[in-house]
């Protein structure tokens, strides 16, 4: 049976490599990654004081923000706008050509066939990662620093992003009549998640919970060096759910009613799995500068707060103070206080028309019947406030090592040649060779 499955995988792999969409993806991804990498290295060098100007504070220079996230950000673009077409083709071409009728009779289950398609896509995506990996190798060659946990965490995020995109695209291709309809559904999903991301910014409740798992938002955690179990679980559950829906729907030998029922039951399970997954607060800060955590001493002290805490924030979604507060305080508190509730009380999106309100800018902390207000969004002040509210003695100044920062005043030597010339030439040559060998 293993050899049969290998045969099925090799068929799907061949089908992927005859797809023009896949070769175009490979062709485009090199210059995309290259452009991001070259810009990132140049900006990093400027911030590091290249050309004699003053360098930024070294603590602010991290390869995760400065090089890895922007370089691999090109893959977010590729996985959103190019990869779905590759995935859709793998299903739609068989439906449209009639090969699906033969496929149903082959000695494999529909689930196995969908799994083989996913594996082929994943293998193809790994090849598309080559420019990114070349960029990482070049960074090291320039003398750049890398911290393995945050690098691997970012790669995991992009893997899950690809899995989610594949799940959505394959499900759309299975459900839609044609490749064009599937593409519209997939892009509709993407645009819908962007809209959700925008609408939910600075709001609490279920909308914010849901928006935390849109592909863009979920990837953001990984780009920040945070490994959230809930993000991993929800992204995996949604992706596998999409694939399972495809497997149900492609079984055309079953009546539509039966397929609808199975799909509805499955979607119920997915919804429950996503909800349960989202409840998990477990997370690991993989960033080298511990940007998602308070100092170890503060964390230990704040973990002693067992009572439910409610924070009411009177800041509008687009107020930069709210963004600072989210990143610097709330995200860290959410990781260590399991019973934290945040209420976003501002009424408007920009805060322009709330400026006159006296309460605008207030942040209220409520714990065990005690209530205190503070307008600060600065970490030491807020933490001190929390200690007072909870009646906890602040820990002594910790001797935790300070993140040193890694300035690098390097030029992206050779990058243009590799990403703009050698990579496209290699892809075109491999494409030609693959076509020749098929004959």
């Amino acid at each position, binding site marked *: 049976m293993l050899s*049969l499955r290998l*045969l099925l995988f090799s*068929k799907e792999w*061949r*089908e992927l490599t*005859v*797809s023009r969409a896949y070769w175009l993806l490979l062709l485009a991804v090199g210059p995309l990654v290259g452009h991001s990498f070259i810009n990132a290295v140049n900006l990093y060098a400027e911030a590091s004081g290249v050309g004699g100007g003053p360098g930024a504070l070294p603590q602010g220079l991290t390869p995760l923000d400065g090089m890895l996230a922007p370089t691999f950000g090109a893959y977010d673009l590729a996985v959103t706008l190019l990869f779905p077409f590759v995935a859709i083709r793998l299903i739609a*071409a*068989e439906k449209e*050509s*009639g*090969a699906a*009728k*033969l496929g*149903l*009779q*082959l*000695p494999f289950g529909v689930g196995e066939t969908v799994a083989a398609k996913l594996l082929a896509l994943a293998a193809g995506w790994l090849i598309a990662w080559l420019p990114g990996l070349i960029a990482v190798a070049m960074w090291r060659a320039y003398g750049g620093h890398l911290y393995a946990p945050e690098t691997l965490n970012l790669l995991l995020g992009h893997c899950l992003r690809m899995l989610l995109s594949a799940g959505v695209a394959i499900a759309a291709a299975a459900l839609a009549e044609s490749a064009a309809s599937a593409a519209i559904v997939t892009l509709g999903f993407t645009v819908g998640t962007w809209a959700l991301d925008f609408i939910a910014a600075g709001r609490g409740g279920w909308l914010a919970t849901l928006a935390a798992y849109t592909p863009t938002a979920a990837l953001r955690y990984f780009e920040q060096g945070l490994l959230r179990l809930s993000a991993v679980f929800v992204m995996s559950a949604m992706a596998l759910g999409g694939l399972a829906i495809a497997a149900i729907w492609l079984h*055309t*030998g*079953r*009546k539509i009613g*039966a397929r609808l029922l199975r799909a509805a039951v499955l979607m119920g399970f997915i919804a429950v799995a996503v909800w349960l997954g989202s409840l998990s607060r477990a997370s690991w800060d993989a960033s080298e500068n511990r940007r998602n955590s308070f100092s170890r001493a503060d964390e230990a002290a704040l973990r002693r707060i067992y009572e439910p805490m409610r924070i009411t924030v009177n800041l509008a979604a687009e107020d930069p103070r709210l963004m600072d507060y989210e990143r610097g305080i709330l995200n860290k508190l959410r990781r260590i206080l399991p019973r934290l509730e945040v209420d976003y009380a501002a009424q408007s999106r920009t805060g322009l028309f709330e400026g006159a309100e006296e309460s605008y800018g207030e942040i209220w902390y409520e714990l065990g019947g005690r209530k205190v207000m503070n307008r600060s969004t600065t970490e030491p002040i807020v933490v001190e406030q929390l200690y007072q509210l909870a009646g906890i003695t602040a820990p002594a100044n910790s001797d935790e090592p300070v993140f040193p920062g890694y300035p690098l005043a390097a030029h992206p030597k050779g990058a243009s040649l590799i990403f703009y010339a050698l990579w496209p030439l290699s892809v075109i040559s491999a494409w030609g060779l693959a076509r020749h060998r*098929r*004959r």
Partner: protein
Amino acid sequence: MNLLTVNGLSKKFGARAVLQNVSFSVRRGEVLGLIGPNGAGKTTLFECLAGVLPSDGGALISNKQVLAPAQRKNALFYMPDGVTPWAEQSVIWALEFFERLYSASVKAPDLLDALKLESLRHARIGSLSKGERKRLLLALGLLTPQPLLMLDEPFDGLDLRQMRDVMASLRSQAERGRTLMLSIHQLVDAARVCDRLILLSDGRVVGEGTIDELRAQANLSDGGPSEAGLAEAGLAKAGLEEIFLALT
């Protein structure tokens, strides 16, 4: 001896009944022709039998056991008409894929030779003409091991010489004990290659048997006219076309 029995198969598309209580049997080692005009329900019948399309009622029975759709892929293989599977791949790849998949005793190069596909060995499937594609699909079907092979319109698009070659290949398969069921709308072709025939009209089986048996059924269905009546109706030595017209 029956290989399969189809019992009361029915299928509707919306309000339109495409198959109505279709029942017949398939005998081991025979070439069974499914004939009927366009729209009679031949392809739908094949797709329901193969489990590619769900039926609304009825059963497929083998060895006194009802075959669920999931079990049918072990009992039969259906080769559809008008499909261009894996259009970007080469002819030899498709044949070798099936050969490896089923560990077929027949080898792909032999089939290339037998079905005059040798010169197209490395051709892209999507570039084949209708007749060439038809022969490729037949070759793929011949590489499958199921006891029953169902071919939808196997002669459509073939010229006279190709048709003769394909018929010879099919007869040789049947002689080796494989059962074939062919959907054919050209009655002359059906009469030449099939051992028995099923006449399908408006989703109903209107006759089943050899040409002689069908001739007799045409007689019986009229309430049993006399020899003189048969002669007068032109059915005593009637061909399949006349029989079909008499039965529908």
